[in-house]
Every structure is written in C-alpha cells, then in structure tokens.
C-alpha cells in the first residue's frame, strides 16, 4: 500500500502534515507524539527578526472552533537555525519551514538563509501577513503581490515551494493560478478566516487585536469548498487544511482534490491527531483494496445534471 507522496524532489512518507503554528518546532511534544510517523512538520511561521507576538488575550473558543491572534510570535530565523534545526534533524520526517514577512525583501532574505540548510526540506509561504508598504493590507488578498512573492522566491530555491493561501478573498482560484504560473510547486488551502468574538460584559473583543483567525471543525465546510475550487483551477498539488480532526475528515479533503492534508487546531486537543489520521487513512485504504492513497485524490462524483445557473442557494 503506497502512502507516500513526492513533491518536487522531496518524498513525504505519508500525506499527513502538521500545520504551521500548531505544533511548535516539533520539540514541545516529542514525548507525547512519535514524530517519525508524521508525513512532515510545517514550522511556526519564521520572520527575520524574533517577534514577541500580540498582547493577551490571544485566543478564544467559538462554536466548534477557535479564534487566534498570536501575532506570529517566533524566535526569528537565526535562532531557528542555531537552536531548532539541530533538534529537528533528529526527527525522521520532512521539515517544511513556513515563512512570514512584512515585505517581499524579507521573504527573500529569510528563504535565502534557510535554502542551503539540509535540515530544511522545503518552504511554505504565509502570505496572510500585513504589507508594511501598503499600510498593513494583507499580501494575501492582492493577486499581483502573491505572484511577485512567488516569482522572487522561486528564483531563490530549488526546494519545494508551497504558497499558503488565505480564504479571505472572493476567488481563491485566481491566487492559485498566479502561484502556479510563477512556478510554485503546490498551494496550501486554507489559512484562517477573519473572525471576532465579544465579551458582552466588558464590551471588549475577546482577543486583544479585535479580530483574529478562525480555525477548527467549524471551518471545515469552507475549507473543502476552497480546496475544490482551487483543485479545479490548477494542476499543481493542493494541500488541504481546515478543521481536520479524523481520518474521515482527511479523506473528504482527498476526495475533493487535496494531495496532502495538514492538521492544525486538532493538535491542541489531541497532539497525536496527525498520527491517528495517517493510520486511519492507511486502514481505510487496506479495507477498501486501494493500493495507493493517491487513487482517492479528486474522485468526487458530482451531479452533472445541475448547471451553475440553476444552482441558486
């Protein structure tokens, strides 16, 4: 039974990764989780300088979900290289460095520092970051900027380059297309949705930054629809993310067209979710005589008799 997946020159032992910002640098839970069984780890977003992150409160629970505004608190790329890579190397899994930045130059510089290191197998680019030059508007909602970021980074790396798209746009497929045409190897879909929650007694937002990112099972239907839209627009692999808690959830993403999946919020509930999901997928395939997980990808059977024009909500 083939569980593995190859992206450019990198082979993932299975199609289940842990999502950026939800698994630290892999060293927090090595006593709880057998990390070698994961397809890969996407690191917390790394920026050039260390970032303290946002004031508290940074998180709040919502119905079947949570809001967060950690503020990309991270140790900075230098400390990552000196302190974390030696530890990460010991895990027998693929390490994808996720990069966040507030200018195109910063994206490039962080990537260039990591490119030569054999402990980093590929890159995922978080474009849901405020563009300082544009007064803080997110890169990820501007299709031209996402194209330029992809182009600049592509020139600088031989490793797999994955662009992580934000769902907070009208047509995510436009963004996926520009990533594809500028040479990205894959797109990750989705990052968190903008949301908020209010403490009605204090009349204050429940997280300090007013709005935050919504994640968890609540967003799974939205994520599936975005993956499906993306998959129908591009030929490069789509990595499905959003509310995955079980192998059944992961299989839904495969069926709509995701080539790999990432586990985010569920790690907070069960740090070993990634492993139980990977094992569940394997058993599902064995039970159903599927000899390669890849054969499930994009197998959704839709009702062809319904035209778009008829499909009013």
């Amino acid at each position, binding site marked *: 039974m083939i569980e593995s997946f190859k992206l450019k020159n990198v082979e993932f032992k299975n199609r289940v990764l842990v999502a950026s910002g939800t698994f630290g640098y892999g060293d927090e839970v090595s006593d709880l989780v057998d990390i070698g069984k994961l397809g890969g780890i996407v690191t917390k977003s790394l920026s050039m300088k260390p970032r303290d992150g946002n004031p508290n*409160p*940074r*998180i709040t*629970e919502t119905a079947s979900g949570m809001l967060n505004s950690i503020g990309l*608190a991270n140790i900075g790329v230098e400390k990552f290289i000196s302190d974390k890579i030696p530890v990460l190397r010991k895990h027998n899994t693929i390490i994808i460095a996720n990069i966040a930045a507030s200018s195109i130059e910063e994206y490039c510089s962080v990537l260039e520092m990591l490119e030569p290191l054999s402990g980093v197998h590929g890159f995922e680019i978080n474009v849901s970051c405020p563009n300082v030059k544009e007064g803080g508007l997110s890169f990820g909602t501007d299709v031209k900027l996402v194209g330029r970021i992809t182009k600049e980074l592509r020139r600088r790396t031989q490793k797999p380059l994955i662009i992580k798209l934000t769902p907070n746009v009208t047509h995510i497929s436009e963004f996926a297309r520009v990533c594809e045409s500028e040479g990205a190897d894959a797109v990750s879909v989705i990052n968190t949705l903008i949301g908020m929650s209010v403490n009605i007694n204090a009349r204050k937002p429940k997280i300090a930054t007013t709005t935050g990112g919504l994640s968890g099972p609540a967003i799974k239907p939205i994520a599936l629809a975005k993956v499906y839209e993306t998959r129908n627009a591009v030929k490069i692999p789509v990595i499905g993310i959003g509310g995955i808690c079980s192998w059944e959830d992961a299989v839904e993403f495969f069926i709509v067209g995701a080539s790999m999946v990432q586990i985010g919020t569920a*790690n907070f509930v069960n*740090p070993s979710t990634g492993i139980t999901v990977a094992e569940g997928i394997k058993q599902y395939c064995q039970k159903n005589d599927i000899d390669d997980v890849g054969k499930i990808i994009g197998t959704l059977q839709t009702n062809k008799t319904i035209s778009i024009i008829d499909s009013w909500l």
Partner: protein
Amino acid sequence: MRQEIVPIHSFECLTNEILELTFTSDYLASVAKPGQFINIRVDNNFPLLRRPFSIFNIDGNKISIVFNVIGTGTRVLAKKRKGDTIDILGPCGNDFLTFANGEYDTAIFVGGGIGVAPFPFLTKHFPSDKKITTYLGARHKELIVTKGLKNVNISTDDGSDGFHGTVLDLVKDDFKKHDYGKTRFFICGPTRMMKAVAEFANNRNSDCYASLETDMACGIGLCQGCNIETNGGTKKYALVCKEGTIFETRTVKLQ
C-alpha cells in the same frame, strides 16, 4: 506527560456548588506534583478544547479535581457518572514544591474561590519544617472547601461564612493579630485578588508564588495562546501553561 482515557472512580459534592471528581491513573499518580494541572477533554465533540483543572488530591492511584459548574465544559463534566471515562492530558505546568524551600518560617496559602483547588495536595507534600497558614475567600459559603487544608481562615463576600469581606482584608486582619515570622506566599484565584495579595506580600518583602489562569487552547506549549506579559525579562511574554502556571509575582504583569 501522557494522554490517557481513564475511568471515573467517584463523584462527591463537597458543597452545594462544588464537586469532587476522582479518577484512576497509575501514571499520573506516580508523577504529578502539587500545583500541576491536567487538561480534560470533557466530551468528544463539544466543547472543542480541553479544560484545565488543578490536581486537588492524589491518594494511591486515585486523582481528584474539584470544580463548580460555570459554563459548557463544566456542565458536561458534572453530568458524568462513576464508570464513565474521561480523556486527560497531563501532568502540565510547573509545580509549587520547586518554590517551597528557602529561608522563611510560615507558608501562607491564599485561595480565592475555586483557586483553593491546588492547596490540599500542596499541604500534603509541603516541607514539614514549615508552618502553614491558609486563607480562603469566596463569594459565599457554598464555594468554600476546607478538605485537606491546615489552619484555615475563611472569608466570604456576603458574610455567609467566616470573615465578612475580601480575603486580603482577612489576611491583613489576621496578620495584625499574629506573628508568622518570615513568610512566603503561595496563591491561586481570580487575577484581581492575586494582584492585590501579591502587592501585600511583596510589600512585606515576602516572595509570592502565584498559579496563574489564562484561556488555554493546548495547555502544553503548542499554541502560544496563554501568554502573560513579563516584568522586564529578556522576553516580553511568558507562556502560562509551560513556563508557569506558577510565577513569582514580581516577574509578571498581573492585570
């Protein structure tokens, strides 16, 4: 630290509002320390996140927590029955005993409301060369639990039990009457109460170790959601779940 599915051994009402839930875990019983907490998935689907609870007592392989019903998670927990299982992750956080040794005569325990939770287990294992005086404050008498505590002084906001007033007023009042020598404070409760008691303690040149509470998504250092601002350390924030929950109150900004 482990994730385990454990059977509930018993349920007991300590007061009309406070429940003690006891479960069985050989592992946890063998490693957990006073002041640590466990993170409970109260149900399979809802609420999504685990709920943190201090370890109230360990007796053989029986571990207990205490809680009162304040929201979704505690309501679900209160509906469990003997024989049901719960999904726990722990032990989490640092422990009070790390801060127990030192040059002082009396350990002052101050618990506000359900913040009493860690003190019985701490009392049991506290270095025997120290005297202990305990102060409990709560809104009313149904929130007062004295099980497993030593030398308890009680205050309630409504006067239904003990001293009528805040727990800080009680401490001040009692300190006028007695000489506890050199003191060290160990406190747990609502942030506002902890801030007030910590100021009192620090003003007396007593160290004050507070077990802090924040919303937590993971409880184990993964989400970075439980930050608290530090007082001029090298880092602006500390993670309550991992670097705490217990901090010396001069090192963090209580607010």
